[in-house]
């Protein structure tokens, strides 16, 4: 018990300067994005979309991880459950960003132009689904459902700190099971709406799970990164041992390979069938600079993490794991860039001010929100019946 009480008193206190620097980064990034929207809308809007989607992915991944742990009755992860819970706190901010995004709908989505749709039989036949009011309503609906369900789980988890009531765990397990089903359906549709409909003639039925693979891989990497940072800063020094790191490393390793598996599944079917309306997607991404980015994407999301995390010792090694996590966070940005940008950058991928500004703001906002949230309450879920099991994890 001494470990538990000693650790809970250690709240995370991001120093004043630290929080201020992050806030400045958010402001700079947001200012760049805002100027970009007026100066170079064709480049700024897709990047605002990318950054919003990146943030939503992180928030959702946090909720998804917590729900998975509840559903599988997992004990090992209880000691750091506050990290994925804090990650879900970015979701309200993404609601704001989503509203901003609706202003750029005509720059982003070809199907939002009535004149184009009228002269395009394919888009015309899809207009029952792809039209502005329904698109906006759906987007709001997805985020609302996710937020309601995730908040229900997180609030119960926090309430358990004081009461230690076992019934809260049981209820959370039920909500989590429901959330997993709802998530699978809504996220598939959301990824199709927000990302796939950027190229509205193209379609892929595996697109939802491909996006889920990226979302969860990046979520695990970011969560592990925050955990290792907290271990280095102090609060988690006696909470996270190398068995926790080993398990996290195994999950990252597995989902990196899963991402590759799904990436290739999507590619090989389209390559095999060789139907013009499908192959245009890859034809565009195999030429010139985009072809290079395709390789880089695979290197960052699978080849490097796979080789780096193959031995046992690297999965238990803080430094190696931290570097792999950074690679994967950049990798997820590359993956989204690769999915979103080609319609807006005909020849080669360009990375400049308009590309870096929005993602800088998103990442800085993420860390600011997560650490502010962690500093608010207990860092350990002290009322959870499985906390002891997690603190004594040994594999």
């Amino acid at each position, binding site marked *: 018990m001494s470990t538990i009480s000693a650790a809970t008193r250690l709240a995370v206190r991001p120093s004043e300067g630290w929080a201020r620097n992050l806030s400045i980064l958010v402001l700079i990034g947001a200012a760049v994005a805002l100027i970009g929207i007026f100066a170079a809308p064709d480049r700024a809007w897709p990047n605002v979309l990318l950054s919003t989607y990146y943030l939503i992915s992180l928030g959702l991944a946090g909720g998804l991880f917590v729900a998975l742990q509840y559903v599988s009755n997992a004990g090992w992860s209880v000691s750091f459950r506050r990290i994925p819970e804090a990650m879900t706190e970015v979701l309200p901010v993404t609601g704001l960003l989503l509203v901003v995004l609706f202003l750029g709908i005509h720059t982003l989505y070809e199907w939002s132009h009535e004149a184009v749709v009228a002269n395009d039989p394919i888009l015309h036949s899809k207009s029952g689904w792809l039209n502005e009011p329904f698109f906006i309503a759906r987007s709001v609906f997805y985020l609302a459902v996710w937020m309601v369900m995730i908040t229900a789980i997180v609030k119960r988890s926090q309430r358990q700190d004081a009461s230690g009531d076992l019934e809260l765990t049981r209820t959370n397990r039920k909500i989590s099971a429901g959330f997993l089903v709802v998530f699978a359906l809504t996220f598939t549709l959301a990824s199709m709406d927000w990302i796939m409909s950027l190229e509205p003639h193209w379609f892929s039925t595996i697109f939802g799970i491909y996006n889920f693979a990226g979302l969860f891989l990046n979520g695990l990497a970011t969560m592990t990164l925050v955990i290792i940072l907290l271990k280095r800063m102090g609060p988690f020094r006696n909470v996270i041992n190398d068995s926790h790191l080993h398990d996290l490393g195994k999950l990252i390793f597995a989902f990196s390979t899963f991402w590759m598996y799904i990436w*290739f599944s999507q*590619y*090989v079917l389209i*390559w*095999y069938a*060789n139907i013009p309306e499908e192959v245009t997607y890859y034809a565009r991404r195999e030429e010139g600079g985009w072809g290079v980015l395709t390789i880089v994407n695979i290197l960052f999301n699978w080849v490097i993490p796979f080789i780096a995390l193959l*031995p*046992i010792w690297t999965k238990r090694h803080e430094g190696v794991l931290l570097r792999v996590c950074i690679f994967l966070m950049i990798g997820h940005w590359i993956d989204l860039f690769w999915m979103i940008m080609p319609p807006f950058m005909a020849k080669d991928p360009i990375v400049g001010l308009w590309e870096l500004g929005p993602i800088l703001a998103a990442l800085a906002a993420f860390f600011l929100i997560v650490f502010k949230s962690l500093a608010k309450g207990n860092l350990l879920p002290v009322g959870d019946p499985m906390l002891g099991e997690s603190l004594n994890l*040994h*594999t």
Partner: protein
Amino acid sequence: MSRRLLVSSFAHENDLLAATQAAREHGYTILDAYTPFAVHGLDKAMGMRSTRLAWATLILGISGAVAKLWFQIWTSATSWPVNVGGKPLKSVPAFVPVTFEVMVLFAGVGTVLLFLAMRKLWPGKKPAFIYDGATNDRFILVLIQDNASFVVEEVRSLFERFHLVDLEERIERV
């Protein structure tokens, strides 16, 4: 040839872990430990070096992948060229799924067979009798009495700190 063994049994896995650690620190030679379920950390307490089986798995997997890739190119591009939808004969993406499956098959089955062979666990092998409770509720540590300075009573007093349940000497004919 025969050797003298000292079989000690404990009622809890934490006692076994601590006793194993202590036995190693006192320089006793550990033959093996037997437990009803996998006890995490026992390998470290016993001072075992990590397994080389992972390397075998890696080599098996790579050879499976290479062999299958070569086989597919040989069958459908070299020996009997098959034109599928006008694609080049040596179309690697088409070969990837099968290559992947055979890699997993070689690595998986090969590792299991190699493990059984290394531990001499082939079919028809008679189970070695160690201790009655070893598959039920007892945690067994076996030491080898390999030098003259081995005093059973010293071991007993050492292990009693860890709630020793039973201690007995055995002579094993090798």
